[in-house]
């Protein structure tokens, strides 16, 4: 009944009759808990109608404004709980409305300002929006998002209705995450994957879909939770933004402190990862081998595997990668042996041999019963009578009296001295000047002394030149020659042709030659002139080749290299004319691609 009454009141303002009718048939079950008074400032009538319909159905009161002026007027005349403002309004834009209102308001009962806009970039670009808008909903909007925003419990504004949001107050991660998701494509945890499986989106990302920018942690996670990153393909090459601050050392950005206007940092992170990922050879992008993945990760994240002290970890340190310590240790050993990475000493930790933990309680203990309940006292030597015992033997109130000869000791270093200290065990009364240092493992309660406790050295690792070469050139480089061919790398059509030629050779001794075209200066050209220049020049080379060779020969474009199959040409003949060929095909180029042509004959495929 109350709902209907309110309906009647608002219906006197600008609203269509059709809306009224629909509103009155609202079912009570659909109503929100608390009816809000809402002002919708929107210049599109369709949007106006939609919002009003939906919100009134839920039991809220809705007023409409078609431009900035009307909005301001409405704000002055009535009090609202929520204001849905389009950024781009005629006369005065949404931002102006909000800021003017705030300036002139008494501070009491300010409504929440929610921006609805298609121009997220524009909104994010404005410095002032943080002060004025509590929420941002992007267009095209989801109705459920609108409802969520309108109906969410807003403790902060209830507790402190007068104070406008201060710039210093951090935007809540959820809000920011929502915002960021408009700008970037995130793979979210736990929404898109858990420890065992990926969602459809996750699958998509693991195919090195270039649309994904980063992994976002929306709930606290452990390294183990994120293990699927290493068991699937390519996900380990994405930067990880931690919105919860739970894995700060291992992840690439602390998202919990990011504010709307600080997205530069995110930009830089995502961009640098993208760029470096592009340089990675596909061998390493799609590899299943953890060692190669780790190399790839090191490369895209800046070339360094850096340990940091981490009290939350069992090993007391963590690397800047979301992978467990044991795996990293194992793979690094291998990679060191191969010469791909170097190491710099970081620190030495005590380690429990039984469970690998570095959590120890370290203290002196009795050599007899291992109790830590030791009481330290000074040895005291009375020169005159040669009595040497503990200080408590001598103590009588304030005085020191020799228990042997009853003389009072008054002059230190003349009558007596204190040549050391003795540890008396309160548990078993054993006394010694040399107690053991006892280590007790906090995780498994194993006990060690200073000599028997294990040690673990931790190193920082950096990619060495051979490692860099490997990540850029792939496994081909492992053979030691740049010119090595791998059958599996050849394009399919070429393989088919090659097979045919090989059969011909075996049957009729018909010779053939395969030319492998590589572009030595590819990286430099891409860097200095741009990718486009390289691609164009390469295509030109291929075109020239097609024009030069005979009809029965084939020119095949590969992934990183290109091929020419010379049917019926003996290898020796081809080899002799290679230089001429090269000169001919590169003569018309503007840039020097560093074209290298390697010759392979039938024998190379046996």
């Amino acid at each position, binding site marked *: 009944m109350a709902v209907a009454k309110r309906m009647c009141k608002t219906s006197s303002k600008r609203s269509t009759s059709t809306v009224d009718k629909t509103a009155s048939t609202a079912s009570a079950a659909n109503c929100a808990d608390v009816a809000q008074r809402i002002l919708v400032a929107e210049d599109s009538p369709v949007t106006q109608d939609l919002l009003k319909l939906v919100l009134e159905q839920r039991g809220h009161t809705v007023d409409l404004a078609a431009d900035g002026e009307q909005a301001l007027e409405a704000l002055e005349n009535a009090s609202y709980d929520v204001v849905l403002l389009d950024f781009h309004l005629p006369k005065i834009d949404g931002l102006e409305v909000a800021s003017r209102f705030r300036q002139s308001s008494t501070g009491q009962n300010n409504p929440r300002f929610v921006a609805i806009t298609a121009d997220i970039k524009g909104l994010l670009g404005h410095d002032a929006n943080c002060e004025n808008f509590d929420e941002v909903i992007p267009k095209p909007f989801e109705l459920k998002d609108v409802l969520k925003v309108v109906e969410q419990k807003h403790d902060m504004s209830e507790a402190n209705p007068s104070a406008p949001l201060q710039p210093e107050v951090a935007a809540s991660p959820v809000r920011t995450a929502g915002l960021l998701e408009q700008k970037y494509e995130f793979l979210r945890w736990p929404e898109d994957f858990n420890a065992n499986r990926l969602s459809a989106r996750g699958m998509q990302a693991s195919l090195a879909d270039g649309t994904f920018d980063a992994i976002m942690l929306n709930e606290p996670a452990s390294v183990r939770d994120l293990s699927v990153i290493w068991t699937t393909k390519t996900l380990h090459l994405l930067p990880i933004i931690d919105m919860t601050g739970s894995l700060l050392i291992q992840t690439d950005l602390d998202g919990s402190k990011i504010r709307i206007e600080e997205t530069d940092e995110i930009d830089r992170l995502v961009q640098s990862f993208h760029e470096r990922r592009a340089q990675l050879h596909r061998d390493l992008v799609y590899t299943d081998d953890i060692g190669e993945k780790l190399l790839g990760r090191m490369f895209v994240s800046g070339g360094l595997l850096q340990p940091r002290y981490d009290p939350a970890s069992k090993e007391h340190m963590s690397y800047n990668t979301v992978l467990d310590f044991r795996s990293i240790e194992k793979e690094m050993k291998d990679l060191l042996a191969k010469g791909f990475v170097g190491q710099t000493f970081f620190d030495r930790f005590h380690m429990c041999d039984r469970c690998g933990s570095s959590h120890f309680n370290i203290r002196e203990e009795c*050599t007899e019963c291992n109790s830590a309940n030791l009481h330290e006292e000074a*040895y005291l*030597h009375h*020169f*005159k*009578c*040669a*009595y*040497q*015992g*503990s200080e408590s*033997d001598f103590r009588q109130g304030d005085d020191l009296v020799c228990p*042997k*000869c009853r003389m009072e000791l008054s002059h230190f*270093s*003349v*009558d007596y*001295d204190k*040549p*050391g200290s*003795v540890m008396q065990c309160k548990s078993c009364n*054993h*006394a*010694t*000047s*040399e107690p*053991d240092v006892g280590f007790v493992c906090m995780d498994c309660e194993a006990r060690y*002394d200073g*000599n028997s406790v294990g040690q673990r050295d931790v190193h920082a690792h950096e990619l060495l030149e051979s490692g860099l070469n490997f990540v850029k050139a792939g496994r081909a480089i492992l053979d030691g020659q740049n010119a090595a061919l791998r059958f599996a790398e050849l394009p399919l059509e070429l393989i088919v042709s090659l097979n045919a030629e090989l059969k011909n050779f075996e049957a009729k001794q018909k010779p053939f030659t395969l030319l492998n075209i590589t572009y030595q200066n590819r990286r430099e050209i891409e860097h200095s002139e741009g990718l486009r220049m390289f691609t164009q020049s390469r295509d030109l080379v291929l075109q020239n080749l097609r024009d030069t060779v005979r009809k029965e020969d084939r020119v095949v474009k590969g992934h990183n290299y290109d091929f020419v199959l010379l049917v019926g040409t003996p290898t020796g003949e081809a080899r002799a004319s290679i230089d001429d060929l090269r000169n001919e095909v590169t003569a018309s180029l503007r840039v020097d691609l560093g074209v290298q042509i390697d010759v392979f004959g039938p024998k190379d495929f046996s």
Partner: protein
Amino acid sequence: MWSSLADGFNYLTSQSLAGLISLFWFTILFDIPRYGLSFVTAAFFGRSNLPPADNAYDVGKVSVIVAGHNEADAIERCVQSFLEQSRPPDEIVVVSDGSTDNMPEKLKELRRDGLIDQVHCTHLRAGKSAACNLGERWSTGDIVIIADCDCTYERHALKFILAPFRDPAIGAVCGNILVRNATKSLVATFQAIEYLISISLGKQSAAITDQVTCVSGAFGAFRRTALRGVSGNDVGGGEDLDLTLKLRKAGWRIAFAPDSICFTDVPDTLGALTRQRFRWERDAVRVRYRKHADLMNPFSSKFKLKELIHEVEFFVFHILGALMLPIYITWLCLTYGDLALMILLSVQMGLLLLDLLSFILAAWVTPKANALSLLPFMLGYSFFNSFVMRIVRLAAYLQEWFFNASAGDEYLPEKVRLVRWW
């Protein structure tokens, strides 16, 4: 020369008894009695008075206390020596007395390996007495054995040193000391013979008449109640003699265990030997006649006839014997001129005979010593003992008397030396 020797021989053989006495008064007064006592008692009793050694585990808990300064190299061997005993000790307490080498680390290692029971290391050197007192303060045995770091012990040493404790009147037992490095030099060999005769034989016979006055600091066993009763060791320089005298004064009897053998290295050069003996003699004089002067005073409450005997004995045979020697030689030369040499030689011949007999007796009562190998050195020893050692002793007494040499004794840290009143 031969003619004068012949003359001398004739002269001697023509003397009457009274004449001989007046000629050889020195030897008669200062040498023969010294031999005589040991001779008689040992020959009479032999080894029959030794208690059976089957009570080794009945005496209660046995603690060994070893105190050393900079003994990192020697300590492990010493500890192993005790662990090898047929009756091992129940507790080994080792004290590092202000060591500056890595003795503390060595001790920690030994403790970690379970070879010793207590480790006490001090940063400042206190001297052997205070170090032993420290060890004793924390030891828990009923019988306390004080041992030197650089000594090693025959396998049954503990068993035999514990044997006399079956008699509740015994407060301390002195172990036997033999020389380990006898073959190092002639001086060392002579000392090997000397130890055999004066310690092994000498103390065995002294024990019969309860005249053992010094339980050697190298190896001695004490009943804890006795030790505590006399408040342990006093400031050093003869602390072993001092402790024994304190025990005797308190009424305890002191035994000697000839089969309980400790081996030690002796100084192998005359210079080192001289310094050692200087120190021993000085210490003995100070302890006997200054610290325990009351033993010579008939009006003191501590005065006992039994103690007087050994006090006088020491005075007569050691001090007077040394002082009189130059007087005797001078008198001999003045009175008899050329004949003096002959007379001295004949004296020495006589003494050689006595020494030889003593040696044989000593060898007989110390079956474990390798006495036979020392036999060829007896002649040299005899001369060495009679003349060289006496001169050393004389020099020691003079040095102490005129130059108060004890005050500069390096054996004791200065801070302690400064407060020692005797």
